[in-house]
């Protein structure tokens, strides 16, 4: 057995309240869109696409809200949190 290959334990990252708040913005927005879709399923015309006009198939407002949440979480929040943690580390 080669003990040189022992897995290194990763330190658990403790995020600040501000970082957690930024990371929760996207999921909260997506959940708001999901709740809207559940409350008003007729807004998701893809669930019943027959006899729908082109624009009614394009416009799915609860999906827009979910998409904004997902995109914000994937594209904006990680960079903001990385910069915030770097600034917090520098200040401490």
């Amino acid at each position, binding site marked *: 057995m080669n003990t040189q290959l022992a897995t290194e334990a990763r330190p658990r990252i403790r995020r600040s309240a501000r970082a957690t*708040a930024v990371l929760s913005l996207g999921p909260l*927005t997506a959940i708001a869109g999901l709740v809207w879709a559940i409350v008003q399923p007729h807004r998701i015309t893809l669930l019943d696409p027959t006899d729908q*006009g*082109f624009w009614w198939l394009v*416009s799915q*407002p609860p999906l*827009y809200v979910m998409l*904004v949440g997902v995109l914000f979480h994937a594209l904006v*929040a990680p960079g*903001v949190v990385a910069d915030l943690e770097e600034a917090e580390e520098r200040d401490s």
Partner: protein
Amino acid sequence: MTLALIPPSEHVHWWFATGILIVGLCLVAEAIVGPEVWGRRPWRRYLWPGALFLMGLLMWPVMVFFTNSTLHVIAHGVWAQVGMLAGAAHLGLARGKLVNPAWRLTMPLAFVVSGTAFLIHEQNGALYSRSAFVHHAAGWLLIVGAVFPLLLAYRPRSTAFGLGYAFTVIALAVVIYTTRDVASIFGHLSPEAGVPHR
């Protein structure tokens, strides 16, 4: 599936609400982390002013294709102008081309002028229809909410003012998402408004 070239007006409202929601989320994040951290990556500095400028620009075709009275034309033209002005001013501040912090006052100006345009161009009472209520709610929200960008212009690092400003913008997105061409509001719909649908 039928293909009409011009989308129903409520869809256009939802697209703008989506743009406003994007701006609102960016403003919440900026208020939480502070302007210095938010501005660390150049593209991020231009994100919401650019989105605002783009929405102002896109308001022009909306003015051309979706208005049916002089008052509507003027209101949409005013939104286009103040949206572009505030967006461009904040783009200039982000780039460093504009250095006078007074340019930040373009945002409360845009709020007050837009809110006034909402209220003036809606000629029916708030419970006439959903659309009428949306205009009244959006108008007063912007006029009262203008206090946040105004205070933020003088104290740009204030988290409380920043969050108030950001949540005013998000509330505006929510209000605009409730727009329907013809629908009731709290159980009220004037018979003159037309037949409700969806």
